[in-house]
């Protein structure tokens, strides 16, 4: 394993992208940072710019308005990076499957611009913070 991947596993900084989620998943993401779960133990930090990020936490089933923004955010993230589709909507549009304004899900949009993108799925409506932490651990183990 190269030192780059090893260091990446020890400090994955995450950037939070909302592509039309109902805010439940967003609240649960912020929950991970509270003293109860405290993801800073694993070096995980929420950053304010995609250029600092190693992982994108994408919530929501990608509306038509949000899709170009999601592509742009992915292009601006320095590689190597991981994309997390958080929640039922992120994984497969959830209850909005037949919505006229939904162009997602997340993996379809990301794979349009980068077919080799690493995408991890954390289902749930909303997923529990434990589920997200477990998803991140599994995705990093697979790197």
């Amino acid at each position, binding site marked *: 394993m*190269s030192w780059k991947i090893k260091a990446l596993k*020890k400090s994955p900084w995450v950037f939070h992208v909302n592509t039309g989620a109902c805010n439940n998943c967003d609240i649960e993401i912020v929950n991970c940072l509270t*003293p109860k779960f405290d993801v800073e*133990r694993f*070096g995980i930090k929420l950053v304010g710019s995609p250029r*600092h990020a190693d992982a994108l936490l994408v919530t929501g089933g990608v509306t038509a308005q949000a899709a170009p923004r999601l592509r742009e955010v992915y292009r601006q993230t320095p590689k190597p990076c991981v994309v997390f589709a958080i929640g039922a909507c992120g994984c497969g549009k959830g209850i909005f499957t037949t919505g006229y304004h939904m162009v997602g899900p997340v993996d379809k949009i990301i794979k349009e611009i980068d077919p080799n993108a690493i995408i991890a799925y954390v289902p749930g409506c909303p997923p529990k913070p434990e589920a997200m932490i477990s998803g991140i651990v599994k995705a990093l183990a697979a790197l």
Partner: protein
Amino acid sequence: MSVPPNILFWIIVIPGTVILGLVASWIVRKVSALVQWRVGPPFLQPFYDVAKLMGKEILVPQDAHRVVFMAAPIVGLAGVILLSVMLWRIIVTETAFLGDIIVAIYLMVLPSLALILGSSASASPHASVGTSREMKLVMGYELSLVLAFIVVIIKTAALVEPGQQLSLAAIAQHAPVFSISGMLAFLVSILCIQAKLGFVPFDMAEAETELGSGVLIEYSGALLAIWKLMQAVMLVALPLFLVMVFLGGFSADLLTGLAKPVGILPVGIIVLLVFVVAGLLARFNKYIDILFLLALIAACLLAGLGKYVLILVLLILIKNTNPRVRIDQAMKFFWVYCSTTLVVAIILALIGNSYSIGWL
């Protein structure tokens, strides 16, 4: 001083400062976590962060001025490393040159200047808002900082022997904090250092929540790693400077008692080794982290760095107990309240000088 320790000093000073800076930034994060009742990051976290950023892709914005964008972090890091080398040289070898106070003041501006240059070259609206805030902040605290040094210079001018030059080495032999004017100047300059480090009451240039890390928003990969290293080294250099200017340096006090006979340098090396070994052990025990933090502070006290730790902890506690202020509030604070306080302090120091009253 004999030749071998001298060579050892020049070899060890830059990596040592960078490592000490990363350890200090771990202390900042760990103590903040403990204040917020969390566990906090492991000891090697800042090292992992920098290593990871070094291995990432560097993205340069399309409209950015490439040369300034790439050069700014290097200029900032070089400036702050130069400052800390200067300070360590005065501490370890007790030699100084004429006018080093002015050089130190200039070198202390360099990181902020590099930050302003780099972020304004990055062609981002968020970064430009951050830049304008950083500029206003620099204008705000720089006046107070220079006035605080003028108090110290006035206090020291009365105390130096006739032949001695008024340099940092001479200033470091006296502790002006044990007088009214010196105490006022010390308190104000702690707040100025807080603003220089971009710590919380004065972090409006980086404002995570509104500007998305503001001035640094467009930086990625190795360039961001250099900014992080710069901020880490600033955590060493600026409190060290305060210790030298206000608290009487590292000589002639109770805390250096143990370090004096063997010399500061060997003790420093041993302490650094203890840090690294204990850090590697930290992963085997759940509570060793907190024990390690306490051991670290104890080791610092033994190595004569007690005053440095005191200032660092003060900065962290101010950081954790205050909300972010607006830029206009910060400027009003520095220009109206801090400057007025310092003008009073200068008048007191001058009165104390002419009537030779030591405690004024």
